[in-house]
């Protein structure tokens, strides 16, 4: 029982971070139809940006986060402006290639500045543990859950209530019609990339804190693919369900079966889902009227 509880909390925490990472991916796909293979590297860059601000520049925590958000926004906007906008109208495979190129570029830049060894960063989230039903639960995982829940809620409210959030969904639905409403599609694209980078930054900071600030963050970020295939490429609620499912599955496999199998299992799920339900569980249905 205690192992079960433990694995569950670890799994939920991983899953919550995955949901954040996948949210960025889904945002970009929904608004701009680009499949962003660099999402994992966005997490990596986010984690190192925060490390730079917090450890290297020794900024206070809040300022370090703000610094990270500003840089992430900038990176998102620049990537859209300099790399994706010139590609508008090109075929999807070329665009995927470009995002793969971007992922390699971002990873190399991080390596160039910080090498491949893990960076030591003081714990940001409260450490220690609590006892729940005989299980020792690390407090930082609970914080991860809380922060991810707050951020995901904030994003959801943004999409449901705010003018810009609704405009983003409008662009995702029908670009030309959105243009006739005076919505600048370019600005919305830039916004989608910026928001994706910011959600990746938060995921990256959390990952860096509970694991380590190293290149593995990008590998963890690669898990967004099983997550979005499971949840649906264009579904925001799907990222949460998909993220938590993959997170739990990984931890339970690792705890009860075999840690080696745990790294493969998300991709087994990916293949299975592709065979059974190619649009994911929550993928948006195309509304067709007759």
């Amino acid at each position, binding site marked *: 029982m205690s192992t079960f509880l433990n694995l569950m909390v670890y799994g939920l925490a991983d899953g919550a971070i995955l949901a954040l990472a996948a949210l960025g991916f889904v945002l970009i796909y929904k608004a701009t139809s680009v499949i962003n293979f660099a999402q994992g590297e966005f997490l990596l860059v986010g984690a190192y940006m925060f490390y730079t601000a917090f450890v290297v520049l020794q900024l206070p925590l809040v300022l370090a986060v703000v610094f990270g958000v500003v840089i992430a926004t900038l990176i998102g906007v620049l990537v859209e402006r300099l790399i994706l906008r010139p590609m508008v109208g090109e075929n999807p495979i070329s665009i995927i290639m470009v995002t793969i190129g971007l992922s390699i570029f971002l990873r190399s830049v991080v390596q160039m500045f910080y090498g491949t060894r893990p960076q030591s960063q003081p714990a940001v989230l409260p450490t220690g543990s609590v006892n729940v039903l005989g299980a020792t639960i690390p407090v930082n995982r609970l914080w991860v859950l809380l922060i991810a829940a707050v951020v995901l809620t904030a994003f959801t409210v943004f999409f449901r209530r705010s003018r810009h959030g*609704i405009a983003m969904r409008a662009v995702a639905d029908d670009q030309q*019609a959105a243009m*006739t*409403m005076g919505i600048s599609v370019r600005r919305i694209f830039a916004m989608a990339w910026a928001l994706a980078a910011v959600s990746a930054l938060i995921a990256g900071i959390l990952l860096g804190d509970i694991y380590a600030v190293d290149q593995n963050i990008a590998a963890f970020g690669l898990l967004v693919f099983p997550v979005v295939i499971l949840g649906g490429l264009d579904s925001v609620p799907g990222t949460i369900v998909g993220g938590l499912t993959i997170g739990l599955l990984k931890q339970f496999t690792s705890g009860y079966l075999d840690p080696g199998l745990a790294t493969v299992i998300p991709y087994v799920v990916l293949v299975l889902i592709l065979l059974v339900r190619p649009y994911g569980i929550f993928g948006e249905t195309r*509304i067709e009227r007759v």
Partner: protein
Amino acid sequence: MSTTPVTGTSGAAATAAPGGSLLTLNNVEVIYDDVILVLRGLSLAVPEGKIVALLGSNGAGKSTTLKAVSGLLPSEHGEVTDGSVVFDGQDITRMDAAERVKQGMSLCMEGRHVFEHLSVAENLVAGAYTQKDSGEDLDVVYEFFPKLADMRNRVAGYLSGGEQQMLAIGRALMAKPKLLMLDEPSLGLAPLLVQEIFGYIKRLNTERGLTVLVIEQNARRALEVADHGYIMEQGRIVLEGPAAEMRENPDVKEFYLGLGEEGGRKSYRDVKHYKRRKRWL
């Protein structure tokens, strides 16, 4: 205002007094993909406070005309290569689409194009994107289209065609336009609904002084509500005049026959067109 009788010329822009014209197209030429010439020197004027109907058969370039006015051509690899579009005294030929909406024009695209996955209310909020505060306007639109108020939380994609058309018009109104452009608002609607939609268009014009430019296949219906009519063919205006005169003029009814003689082309294609056009009038 223009009192030009029905003529076969395309001197539309010249006939409207410049001061009273909210929208003017001067010899506009539009090319798609650098090679497909669709508008060949089209001129028309929409006087302030009037309803103008732009009629023509399939492929004449009606939708292209509205796209040129609203700045949507670049998104379709189209370009205004000659002539000018003047709105409210300002040359907007090269203006960004979003900026044009801010200047006071709204377009209801052909096929309604509601945001399918958004609710009715969210569609309207999206329509008010250029406005700072949209709360009051929402109520105005709901008052005008009581049906929309009843289904404000429904997903737009599942509304009926008529409801979607009302939503599309309501959404366009949220931008507080001076000029409302409608591309075939009756498309695919039952006759009773067509009548209802045109009733709304007329009311928008008389009650709120909205200037309207409407494209229609349903020429009779459009000329009933319009003040002025234009008929275009192959990228040009071939006929224009006050709606009342156009309605009565036998030339208008025979218009397509007349054109066949003018062009001197009597191909199979023309015959096919003729059949389609006859249904059209």
